[in-house]
Each structure stands twice: as structure tokens, then as C-alpha cells.
């Protein structure tokens, strides 16, 4: 008996990959989610009518979404409000059942909400908090320790690590209601990561934070991802977050997948221009500039030009040759603008329709 099972084990263990570890951290195939929304017009009469006679409307939040994410990847979900980002996150974390399609996270079906699955994931929502309002965050940490059944030593170790990384040694001792938004978010992250999850769902984790706090949160997420090899899936309104954190973006619009790939590639495909910002000692001639590229802005001491990427080299060389130019920087157009242009484009489907 013993020998047989050994051989079997040996057979399974080659190639040397753990049997249970899925090759993909997240697999989504043909995911659709339809909500039944109760419709009501404005005004008292409409409200009264809706008391007796309710109309329901099916809202297609997500439609035929497919993608997969490898362990340790950092992926950003982009899309306008109501595009289906949060819905997708909720389906992935098991809070919502998919109407159609298959979803696997760490090899589990999320909607079953098995204990082993729940111990591997975490969800942080920038707009909602799990910290106990009237008590210091350390109490929430203790509670989560009990809930996740974390061993004392592991807990101490993790908490020490998080406390150092997030610098929350003193603030975690103060009642949550006395903390600033940024301090609260740091503690919120700590509370969500005590059980060392392997898959992080972050829904607008930097919303409302000032720039330096955004940076802190961003750096922390990056370092957690590198230390623990955890998969990070993030939605954010701040393009800078996504640009700094996520080598890969998935763009969702009207519940459909619009783009899946690297952010620089997306920017290149939407806007094949580069922006050249100039500081000048004397005003430049507009007509002369127009010959180099499109003039975005021009005043006495400053000029901004848009130049096709292919012509960038020549343009820079030319501009540097002008004596009025004191400083020159080449940058991508602001990400917000790129995305606006991208969403303004018709989808493949709309183009196909007459």
C-alpha cells in the first residue's frame, strides 16, 4: 500500500509543480451579469404608482467578459462609471453570482464561498470600511485574527510587517473615528491583509486621498505584491494609480471588454502622438510651430506641441536648435485625455451596425 501511494505521488509530482496550484490565478469565461432593477419615475405620482405597480428592467452590467490573470500579476480595471468594474470584482470575490459564464479564482468557484477560498482573497473598498468606527484599528485586527483563525506567531509577524510598511504603529492605537481618511485607508489595508491573501481585489483604494497618501498606498500595494507574489486586481479613477501599478490593464465599457494588454500599447494605439512641452525665453512664432506639429498651447514663456511618434526625433532636434528654447520635455498626453478619446470611439459592434 505505502509503496504504491508513493509511486503515485511521485508520478503526480512530476513536473515539479504543486498539484493543486492553478496555472492561472483568475479565469473568466463568457461572464455575464444581469440585474433586475426596479424602475421608478420622478415625482410623487410616479412614486405612488410604483408602490402598487412595479416595473422591472433588466440591466446588463457585464456582458460576455473573458480574460485570465496569472498569479502575481498586477492588473488594472479601467472604465467609466457604471462600466461594470465593481460588478466584475464582486463576481470574482463571490459576492455576486454570475448570470452566465464561468469564473475561477485560485482554482475555486467564488460564488460557493468556501472557507479555503475566502482565506485566500481579500476585498478593499475605498468607499466602504470594515474598521470598527469607535475603537482603535488594533481591535479590528484582533477580531480578524479570530475570524481567520490566524496563529499567534504568524499574526504577530504579519502585523509587524504591515505596521512597518504602512507606518501605522501609533495610529492603529487611536479610535478609528479620530483618524484622517488616509490613515484610515492604511489601517483598512492592514486589516484586509492580515491573513496574507494571495488575491487582492482593490476597488478604488485611493479614492479621496491626497497625492502623497496615494503614493504611499500605491507603493505599499506594489511591495506587498512583490513580497508575497500576490495577484492584484485594482480599479481606480486615478489613472496615475493604474499607470504606476499595473503593467496590464483591462478596459471595460458598457459591460464589455474593450481592451486587454499593456497600458503604453493602449496609449499608443489611441493617441499615436507625443507631447513636447517647451519653456522659452521669447515668444515663439505660431506659424513656425505649426510646421513642426499641432500647437496645444502657446504663450509668452511656454508652448505645448503634439507630434506624431514617428516624427518625434526630427521635431526635438529642430526645436532644440532654436535659441529661444530654454527647456524641453517629451511626455505622453495625459492618460485621462487618452481614455476619454478611447471611450469616445465607437466600439467594434457599433461600427459594424449601419
Amino acid at each position: 500500500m505505502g509503496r504504491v501511494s508513493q509511486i503515485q505521488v511521485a508520478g503526480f509530482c512530476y513536473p515539479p509543480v504543486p498539484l493543486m496550484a492553478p496555472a492561472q490565478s483568475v479565469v473568466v469565461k463568457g461572464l455575464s451579469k444581469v440585474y433586475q432593477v426596479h424602475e421608478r419615475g420622478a415625482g410623487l405620482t410616479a412614486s405612488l404608482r410604483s408602490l402598487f405597480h412595479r416595473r422591472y428592467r433588466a440591466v446588463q452590467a457585464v456582458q460576455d467578459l473573458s480574460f485570465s490573470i496569472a498569479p502575481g500579476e498586477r492588473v488594472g480595471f479601467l472604465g467609466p462609471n457604471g462600466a461594470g468594474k465593481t460588478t466584475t470584482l464582486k463576481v470574482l470575490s463571490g459576492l455576486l453570482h454570475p448570470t452566465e459564464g464561468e469564473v475561477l479564482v485560485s482554482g475555486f468557484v467564488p460564488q460557493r464561498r468556501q472557507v479555503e477560498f475566502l482565506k485566500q482573497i481579500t476585498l478593499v473598498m475605498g468607499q466602504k470600511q470594515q474598521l470598527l468606527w469607535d475603537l482603535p484599528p488594533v481591535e479590528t485586527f484582533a477580531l480578524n485574527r479570530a475570524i481567520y483563525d490566524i496563529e499567534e506567531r504568524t499574526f504577530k509577524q504579519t502585523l509587524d510587517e504591515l505596521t512597518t510598511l504602512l507606518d501605522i504603529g501609533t495610529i492603529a492605537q487611536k479610535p478609528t473615528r479620530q483618524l484622517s481618511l488616509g490613515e484610515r485607508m492604511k489601517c483598512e489595508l492592514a486589516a484586509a491583509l492580515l491573513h496574507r491573501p494571495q488575491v487582492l481585489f482593490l476597488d478604488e483604494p485611493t479614492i479621496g486621498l491626497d497625492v502623497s497618501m496615494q503614493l504611499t498606498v500605491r507603493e505599499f500595494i506594489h511591495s506587498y505584491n512583490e513580497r508575497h507574489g500576490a495577484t492584484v486586481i485594482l480599479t481606480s479613477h486615478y489613472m496615475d494609480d493604474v499607470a504606476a501599478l499595473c503593467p496590464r490593464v483591462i478596459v471595460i465599457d458598457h459591460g464589455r471588454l474593450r481592451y486587454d494588454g499593456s497600458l503604453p500599447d493602449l496609449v499608443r494605439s489611441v493617441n499615436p502622438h507625443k507631447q513636447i512641452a517647451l519653456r522659452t525665453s521669447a515668444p515663439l512664432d505660431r506659424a513656425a510651430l505649426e510646421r513642426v506639429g499641432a500647437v496645444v498651447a502657446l504663450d509668452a514663456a511656454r508652448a505645448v506641441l503634439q507630434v506624431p511618434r514617428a516624427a518625434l526625433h526630427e521635431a526635438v532636434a529642430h526645436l532644440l536648435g532654436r535659441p529661444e528654447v530654454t527647456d524641453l520635455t517629451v511626455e505622453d498626453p495625459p492618460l485621462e485625455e487618452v481614455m476619454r478619446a478611447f471611450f469616445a470611439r465607437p466600439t467594434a459592434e457599433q461600427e459594424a451596425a449601419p
Partner: protein
Amino acid sequence: MRYLRLLLTQIRISLALGMQYRWEFLLGGGLTVVWTLISLVPLHIAFSGRPPIEGWTYERALVVVGWFTLLKGVLDGAVNPSLIRVVEQIRQGTLDFTLLKPADAQFLVSTAKFEVWKVVDVTAALAIFTYAFSRLGRAPAVVDVAVALAMLGAATLVLYSLWILVIAAAFWVVRLDNLAYLFNSLFDFARWPVTMFSGIWRVIFTVVIPLALMTTYPALALLGALPPRTGLLSVGGALLFAVVARVVWRRAIAHYTSASS
């Protein structure tokens, strides 16, 4: 074992919370004493120095009020605070956090908050019992105390299950805080022995809203006058009710879609 540790952690946190607002809670304790005394006034007017109503003398009715106070303390201390919070959490969508925890959601929401200072209610109830039995000139038998406590357990279980059903309804309807008020005002009838009500009211208060089970039966038990069959039926009924509530809860969770998509 793990859930016991979880429960202890929750209680410890509630204690920490209670300590933070000690003045508020001390004041609350003082008010409880005043209200208990005030609640004795109508009883005093209805019973004192008059012939017994439906077999209920002043002292025996006092025992019912004692159970009412005790049960109120248990409910306000251990059941209501947690469950009122759930309705709020459903509305705000923060219940998501609870549902993503690798522990039973019903357990988590039911033990989220304890009002430790409601111990005052329990003390008040004990004072009423002492007074009533000293007037009766005897002490309750040990067996009767045990049966009465079992009845208290059954009553708490029924009320808790009612709450769970209300919350399960909240998953569909979302806004239900008013139901909590209705619940509280109906509960107020439980301070009267149920056999004092006649006709349809007695049926309603026994079967539909089990006020009889809540206070009259424990009181009868403590007085040594509860028919064993009624006691067994009550415990069995309470257990059955809890199972039903659990099943409905699970279905409600499956149906739950969190606020804001």
C-alpha cells in the same frame, strides 16, 4: 472551539466599547432602574389590594414583570444591538465584508455587538423576583428555577429567530428599521400575563406573537405552575423556529445582491 474564541473576542471588543462610553452607559443604567420602577406603576394600580384577575395575584403578576425585565435585558444586551446593525449594513453595502469572512455569516452578525451595561436590567429583574417571592413568603424550588431558565432560553431563541427572519426580509426589501419599532411596541404587551387577555388577543399573543412563551411561561415555571407538556412544547417549538429561521437566512444570503452595483 474556534467559534468560542471568536465569541470571546467579540465580547471583549464590546466591553472595550462599553468602557469608552462609560458615562453614557452609567446614565443608561440609571434610566433603566427608573423605567423599571415606572413600569411597575400600572401593575400596582391594576392589582394591588384588589382581588386576583384570572387567578393572577399581585405577587404572581410581579414575577411576570420580572421576566419581562430580564428578557428585555437579555434582548437589548445580547440580541438587538448586533441585529439592528445588520439592517444598516445591508443598506450601506458593508455587509459585503462580513460575507467575505471565512466564518459563518449568521454567527458573525449575531455576535457583532453586546451592550454590557444591560446587566443592570438583569439585576433589576433579580430584585423584582426577590421582592415578589418575599411577599409570597417562600423561595422558588431549584427545579423550577432550572425550568424557568430553560424557558428563558426558548424565549430568547424565538425572539432571536424572529429577528433573523426580519433581517432576511431586509435582504429583499432593504429598508426595515420601522419593523424594529413595531417589534418593540408589541413586545411591551409581554409585561402582562397572557391569560389576562381574552378571546382573539390571547390567541394572537400565544401563537402569532409568542408573548406567552416569552414571559408568562417562565413566570409560571418559576412559580412551579407550568404544565410539563407546555414547557416541552415551547422548547421544541423554539428549536423548530430557529431551524426555520436558519433555512430562510441561508436562502436570503444566496439572494443577496449588495447595494450599488
